[in-house]
């Protein structure tokens, strides 16, 4: 009963309707801007003026206004570079001579397209049949065949899902870090601890706090995730690619939520314990310890490009990294059910142990004012047992 009352109170401390509505408004604004950006860009961009000195039919290239000029006007065109023309293109001895006033990034966009145009002109001049010309102009088709069903689902969308998940995890972990750090150190400084510890036990308090703040972190991840999904969807629709469907199943999504939720509880337990040992957040060496939970994310990030590699295998089973590694692996490859189960059980066991250890550290630190526990005492309490006051 108290656990839920504490969790709800902690959640509501950070959940403010006004702030949520402002964030949602800003997200929607970004969404509208993102989805209309291609249209806006086309509308706002001026086409570059290109003079093509050639008798052959000129190509049509988006963003460029190409005017075809006869070879005798080449000198006139070249004298107008920078004023009349942004670019003058000549063809001499099968070589493209592109003249501009100065170097600019947009020139990289037109160069390969002009090369392609010239290549086609040259092929057209060869003594080949129409069928032969088609063969020369078309790239051969390639088909990928996988013997193991669904063994490598790696494609652009799946990498995008893994990357998105990592971004969300970073948001969740850093939210937890911020809230735990400020909430607990402020409560200690304002002596809220004295009042609450006469009403509830330290165990009840830390459990409720971890649950409330983890739920808030999960909420932040879900709202940001939903926004990212809508953004991708809007861009996809604006580009005319149709609806973007997440390349993961409902089961994989549910698994990801489960692992991530347990991961947040794990990380917030650690942070709550150590935040309680900090007396003054501005001058404490303990603050650095609070950054430790970001290490698993860094490790998983470095291994995520090879979802089938041994390292990712180990990370998805190791309980301190599995909450991040397992969902990412599942987004890329099919994970055997027993590995999933082993990973989940190890994560649950680790959560149970870490929460008990963090409770002991919390109990040690929360009533200590004006000084911080020694490192040795802290380590002893964290690893072994409750130390007497």
């Amino acid at each position, binding site marked *: 009963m*108290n656990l839920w009352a*504490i969790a709800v*109170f902690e959640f509501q401390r950070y959940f403010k309707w006004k702030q949520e509505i402002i964030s949602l408004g800003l997200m929607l604004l970004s969404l509208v801007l993102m989805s209309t950006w291609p249209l806006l860009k086309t509308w706002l961009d001026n086409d570059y003026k290109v003079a093509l000195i050639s008798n052959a039919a000129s190509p049509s290239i988006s963003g460029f206004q190409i005017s075809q000029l006869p070879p005798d006007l080449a000198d006139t065109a070249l004298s107008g570079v920078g004023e009349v023309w942004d670019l003058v293109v000549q063809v001499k001895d099968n070589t493209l001579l592109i003249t501009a006033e100065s170097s600019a990034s947009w020139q990289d966009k037109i160069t390969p397209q002009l090369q392609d145009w010239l290549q086609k002109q040259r092929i057209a001049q060869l003594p080949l049949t129409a069928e032969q010309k088609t063969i020369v102009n078309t790239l051969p088709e390639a088909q990928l065949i996988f013997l193991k069903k669904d063994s490598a689902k790696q494609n652009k969308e799946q990498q995008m899902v893994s990357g998105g998940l990592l971004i969300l995890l970073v948001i969740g972990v850093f939210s937890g870090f911020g809230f735990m750090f400020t909430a607990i150190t402020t409560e200690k400084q304002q*002596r809220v601890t*004295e009042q609450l510890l*006469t009403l*509830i036990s330290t165990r009840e308090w830390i459990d409720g706090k971890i649950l409330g703040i983890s739920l808030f972190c999960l909420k932040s991840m879900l709202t940001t995730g939903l926004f990212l999904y809508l953004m991708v969807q809007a861009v996809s629709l604006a580009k005319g690619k149709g609806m973007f469907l997440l390349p993961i199943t409902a089961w994989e999504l549910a698994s990801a939520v489960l692992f991530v939720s347990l991961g947040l509880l794990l990380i917030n337990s650690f942070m709550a314990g150590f935040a309680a040992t900090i007396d003054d957040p501005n001058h404490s060496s303990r603050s650095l310890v609070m950054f430790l939970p970001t290490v698993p994310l860094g490790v998983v990030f470095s291994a995520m490009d090879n979802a089938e590699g041994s390292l990712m295998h180990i990370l998805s089973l190791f309980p301190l990294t599995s909450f991040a590694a397992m969902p990412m692996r599942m987004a890329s490859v099919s994970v055997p059910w027993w590995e999933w189960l082993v990973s989940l059980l190890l994560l649950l066991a680790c959560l149970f142990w870490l929460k008990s250890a963090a409770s002991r550290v919390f109990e040690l630190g929360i*009533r200590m004012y004006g000084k911080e526990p020694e490192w040795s005492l802290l380590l002893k309490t964290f690893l072994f047992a409750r130390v007497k006051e």
Partner: protein
Amino acid sequence: MLRISAYQIEKSYSTVKAVNRVSFEVQSGQIFALLGPNGAGKSSLIRMLVGLTRPDAGKINIEFKGEQLSTLPKRCYGYLPEDRGLYQDRTVRQNLTYIGKLRGMTASELDSALRLWCDRLDLSEKMEDNLNKLSKGNQQKVQLISCVLHQPDLLILDEPFSGLDPVNQEHVLSILTELKQSGTTVILSAHQMALIERLADQMLLLNKGELVAQGSLAEVSVQLDPKQWYEVSFTQQISTEALQGLTAVAECNRLEATKVQLTLNPGYSVSQLLQQLSGLADLADFSRIQPSLHQLYLTAVQNHNQQQSLSKQARQQQNAEGDAA
């Protein structure tokens, strides 16, 4: 029924002895005051009573509703800490509702208790204000409500009058008196001696962690000022020498031409004193001077500090002599 007995309690922080072998007993329905200057050990004693810290030595026994306990049951008491401990960024209602829920109150109990206490302490219009928007006095009132919401059997209040103006001090005083009448036991620490004098049934005076005096106001007066002073008015002027010549008079101070203050010599009774005084001149008035608690408190702390420094000097001298030998 509630009884708290503390025996030879000791508590040290690093090298400082905050509480040194202090014993006392609090009976059900009493208002028990802990007095002493800053650093006397009052808050340390209170923190041990509520179980926030444990004594290094000694024992605290609690008898509550016929049961012998070593700690106070959480739901039976309300605690007002010295450093006010509520959430500054939450409203009065959110703070009090949270505390009420943690105390196990139902929504309807909470609602009626909030209405009752907030009306009583003029906070009804400030229910939706964040705590950091309230004055210190109003924050103090919110803190007090958080202690009494659940109608506890025992109230433990560390400096409940600090931050309150005289009108609100009187208000809190009347609330505490009413709570006492309804059977609530109150343990409090304070510096406002005039209020304590009117409020407390029993008191404990501490200085530098040590017990200086304890008991009712009358008992404490006798313990702290054994010399009893009398004020005497004569119908005519009497010389100081003549008064000091009386065997029943120990000390004499002149206040006015015909008015003096004097103390009784040990071994003499008040009637013997009156007899000797009447022999000098006719008496216009004779009364015993009751020193204020404030006066007693200052004298007691001063005397205790002097005693401590004398015994420290004696120890240092002994050590020096020992070293020389």
